[in-house]
């Protein structure tokens, strides 16, 4: 294994400063510093707060990852970094640091795509990804369905959310229900005790013949339900609302993901991103994949959320594919399309 290049991955696209070291499909060290606690009172990520935190956390996080891997900076063969998509100021901290590390170490720099990284990270847990595969990325910032022919060179976007990301809908509904931020875990917990069929919330873009998603109407429907109950002086049954909301989200997500597998004749579905930790999503995806004869791969929760491992994993894939390194004038791209696993 040791003849494979040692890749350091740096991720700063949102509120997590992540650094990891990977050889091939082996994760050697992985450290994440999160600024989520500083965002809680604002009910969402404040870009300037996140950027300030990245700058402070950058070099300490690099060293925690190196220590965990038992390697030195001088052992690093390549530096991979998230070039986009993400928050402009946040991306710029990671890219600036990555360029400096690559330049000082005299090693190549690879600016890679955050979304494709979420798929690549699965290789660290389940080994090489069968080609092609379908990937569903669900997080606070993204809801995308991808056809992955090759992680390094050929990723096609099948659909995206047209408004809110799935995780964003969780955060907004959590606020309506007086649950804490981030909204995913508390809604998932509350939903365990609720009846998903007690309220019928809309399924955005259900059966519209596309692989796009929409969660804004669902959020408004929950807000109406809450206001109506309030007006009538009825107590809110939070567990039922949470369960019915969650059912609506995961129903559309899993249905469209499995439909994409069937339509494209693909035998593997990867679900990743922060929302992949959701228990209802995993349960329904397992059930529907089994029925459709599709292998479901979901990385462990630690790898699903933003981290350096996903970037190092994609970096290793790009190096293995023999692609040319990015230049030192690499620009960040807040809306880097998935069709560009490697930014130039």
């Amino acid at each position: 294994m040791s003849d494979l290049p040692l890749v350091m991955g740096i991720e700063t696209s949102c509120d997590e400063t992540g650094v990891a070291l990977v050889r091939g499909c082996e994760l050697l060290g992985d450290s994440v510093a999160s600024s989520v606690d500083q965002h809680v009172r604002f009910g969402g990520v404040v870009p300037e707060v996140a950027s300030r935190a990245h700058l402070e956390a950058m070099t300490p996080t690099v060293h925690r990852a190196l220590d965990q891997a038992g390697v030195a900076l001088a052992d690093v063969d390549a530096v991979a970094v998230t070039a986009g998509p993400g928050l402009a100021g946040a991306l710029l901290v990671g890219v600036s640091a990555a360029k400096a590390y690559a330049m000082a170490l005299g090693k190549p720099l690879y600016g890679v795509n955050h979304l494709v990284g979420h798929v690549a990270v699965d290789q660290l847990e389940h080994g090489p990804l069968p080609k092609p595969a379908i990937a569903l990325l669900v997080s606070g910032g993204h809801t995308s369905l991808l056809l992955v022919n090759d992680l390094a060179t050929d990723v096609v976007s099948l659909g995206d959310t047209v408004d809110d990301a799935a995780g964003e809908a969780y955060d907004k509904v959590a606020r309506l229900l007086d649950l804490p931020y981030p909204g995913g875990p508390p809604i998932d917990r509350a939903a365990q005790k609720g009846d998903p069929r007690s309220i019928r919330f809309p399924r955005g873009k259900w059966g519209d013949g596309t692989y796009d998603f929409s969660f804004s109407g669902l959020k408004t429907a929950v807000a109406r339900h809450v206001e109506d109950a309030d007006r009538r002086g009825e107590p809110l049954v939070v567990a039922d609302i949470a369960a019915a909301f969650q059912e609506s989200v995961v129903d559309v997500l899993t249905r469209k993901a499995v439909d994409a597998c069937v339509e494209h004749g693909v035998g593997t579905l990867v679900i990743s991103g922060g929302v992949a930790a959701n228990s209802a999503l995993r349960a329904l995806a397992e059930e529907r994949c089994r029925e459709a004869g599709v292998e479901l791969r979901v990385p462990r929760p630690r790898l699903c959320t933003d981290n350096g491992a996903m970037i190092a994993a994609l970096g290793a894939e790009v190096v293995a594919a023999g692609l040319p390194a990015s230049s030192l004038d690499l620009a960040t791209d807040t809306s880097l399309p998935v069709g560009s696993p490697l930014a130039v």
Partner: protein
Amino acid sequence: MLLLAFDTATPAVTAAIGESDPDGSFTLRASAGSVDARRHGELLSPTIARLTGEAGVALADLDRIAVGIGPGPYTGLRVGLATAHALADALGVPCHGVTTLDALAFATRRTEPFLAMTDARRKEVFWARYEDHLTRTGEVAVDRPAEVDTADLPLVGDGARMYADVFGTGGAPVEPLHPDAAAMAELALLRLHRGEKLPEPHPLYLRRPDAVEPGAPKKVRQWVK
């Protein structure tokens, strides 16, 4: 002592390599820069790579890094700091901060009192008062131009140019507009030679992040009170 200095706290991206002899005399080995407020992240590393070539040194030859710590617009400012932290870390050399306004002031070589100011955006300036090019009196500050007590002293820097009408200094020379890393390198080496302590390489933000705590969710039905 071989030192790399750079600053990204203003629209300028400026970098220089300077050297000081044991007697403290300064030699500029190479300097480069450009003014483009929107491309700091793209310009800085290639500029540094080009400089080392021009100076005929390797990054591994450097003894110190000095970086402008602002004050300055935050996104650009952090490009310099993140680069400096990582370079110093990878090269195993000390990293020092230099207040950007101090570098701007030093380059004037003025021997009489003056104010240095840069654009802070939002119709404000970052500014400080100097007794001479080496001596700042008081802290750096951020204020609306009309609130700055200039005491009728000469003003230098891009902030003075932008608000010449507010200050009533139309026509008076305000150069240099932006800091120059060559001056920053010389200033840093001079301070180190004198045994003075340079600031830590941490950003001078001077303002808290703009963020407001959310109120109650907006009602979706208008007739709900």
